[in-house]
């Protein structure tokens, strides 16, 4: 394999990527290796997003193509080769807020950067974050919020993590809509990130 699939995916050539995968399967190539090459393409997408060359349409479209490729490959695979993960991160939109766009970008970027991400979804109560830290043993928690009600919800979430005696086990980052450094202080989080790339940078520093 020559990186053709990586390139096709990175350049969002949907038809070309599907054609290649089907062709390679016919040629008897290892579906696991094909998947690895597809993942490399996603990594390039993430890099281009970080560089400001790609935006949300590209993230969404690349994820869609990747999903299609996985659906073709999965039935042919004899047990998936697990990728070695860099560390565990829990991500969720805090209680009372159902906005998911910012959170989803962070999940996407952390995932393709090699982290094992637990996505708790939206409107996540503090207790659920606590429970998830206990279950997964994650060392980083990322709180997302778009509405101004998230200011207090973030504070309550950090407090709940402290009350459970887990505060020194995790680093907490926050971000979204009206979140800023002021809110980081208010909530007692470790860092505020303006965008998803900042989130990945922090995770790299912390893990």
């Amino acid at each position, binding site marked *: 394999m020559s990186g053709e699939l990586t390139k096709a995916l990175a350049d969002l050539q949907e038809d070309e990527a599907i054609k290649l995968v089907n062709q390679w399967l016919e040629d008897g190539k290892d579906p696991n290796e094909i998947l690895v090459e597809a993942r490399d393409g996603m990594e390039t997408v993430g890099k281009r997003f970080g560089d400001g060359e790609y935006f949300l349409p590209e993230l969404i*479209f690349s994820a*869609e193509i990747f999903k299609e490729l996985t659906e073709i490959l999965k039935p042919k695979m004899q047990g998936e080769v697990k990728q070695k993960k860099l560390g565990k991160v829990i991500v969720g939109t805090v209680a009372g807020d*159902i906005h998911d766009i910012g959170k989803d970008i962070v999940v996407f970027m952390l995932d393709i950067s090699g982290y094992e991400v637990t996505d708790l979804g939206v409107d996540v109560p503090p207790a659920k974050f606590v429970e998830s830290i206990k279950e997964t043993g994650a060392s980083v928690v990322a709180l997302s919020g778009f509405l101004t009600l998230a200011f207090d919800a973030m504070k309550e979430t950090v407090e709940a993590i402290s009350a459970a005696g887990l505060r020194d086990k995790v680093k907490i980052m926050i971000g979204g809509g009206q979140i800023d450094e002021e*809110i980081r202080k208010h909530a007692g989080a470790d860092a505020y990130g303006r965008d998803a790339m900042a989130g990945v940078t922090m995770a790299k520093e912390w893990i």
Partner: protein
Amino acid sequence: MSKLADELYRERLKRVTDAIELRVPDRVPVSTPFGYFPAKYCGILAHDAFYDYPKWKQAYKKTVIDYEPDMFRLVTNESGQVLEAVISKQTLWPGHGVPETSAQQFVEGEYMTADEYDMFLNNRADFIIRHYLPRVYGLFEPLANLPPLNTQTGVIPYHLLATPEFSNLLTTLVTASKQTMKWRAETGTFAAEMDELGYPSYGGFAGLAPFDMISDNFRGMRGAMLDMYRNPDKLLEACDILLQQQAQMIKALNIPGKTKIGFIPLHRGADGFMSGKQFETFYWPTLKQHINNVIDAGITPCVFFEGDYTSRLEYLLELPKGKVLGQFDSSDIVKVKDVLKNHMCIMGNVPPSLLQTGSTEDVKDYCKWLIDVVGKDGGFIMSPRSAIDEVKPENLKMMFDITKEYGVYN
């Protein structure tokens, strides 16, 4: 209108109008969207805004009178009872999906699939009635059972209408419509009442960017953005159609209150959402035309540039000078002033984080800085950058007081 109220009204409106039309007013005007803040301020619930309008109105009125804004944004909701009756799937409102103390939230979804574009473009009434409405309102689910509208010859389909589902739809709809008209009679006069008391307001809905209509109401953001790649021509055609539809809507638009300032909130055009090229292709052309249509209808558009528009500022120079009020959120406000001075009045951008968690001194310093930098030579209205539902009353008060004191032009 008492003489004093009348005088104050004219004074405030002149201050705001001078700023919008890029003249230097007597001082920097100060405006705010009060949102659900009156609930916190007066000790009632956001829920009351949907279920007890007299109570809500009283609290809102008290809030406005206490803060004495030069202008304020007034939003009226639909009745909660009616939202319940029609089973609105696109709204979570206090007590229904969100706590009674919280603002309503919009539920975006893919209410139109990519392969339904042709129906949307070529047979829209049929699509809206038989496919779209049943998806966004539980009450309208039976409409999905109607035969295609273009197969109808004019014979009333009694056999369908007599079924329990349709009977329920029809009777519920009659009740909900009457409730709505009663609700609107109560809510619709509020702006005029506040005019009488001397307080200009704005906020009447003046449409959306056509791309946002597709993204918010039909395809969902994910769908609309995939369409940029898979169905670009259809997406553009749909934007065009919605532009035309809104042009018709604007002609009949009745903006409450006397300021005739209409509100256009932008959702997906900001930096970070799409590239400059995509903005230029899918977002800006029909938005620009829409804004021009609103201006031609005699309405001053207040465009809410939510998020960061720093990289798009040059485009805004294409809009007519002194005719648009731009409300800015997290854009680099210094750059905004730099590019738009002598062209567009800037409203903003006190962070809610500061108003909610900062000290009064922090608020004072930020507002003074805004007055010095963005208020220079007029064309500026002091305002929070977004919702202020949960801010500290004393911090909000400081925003008003310091602007009135420090924002005087010589």
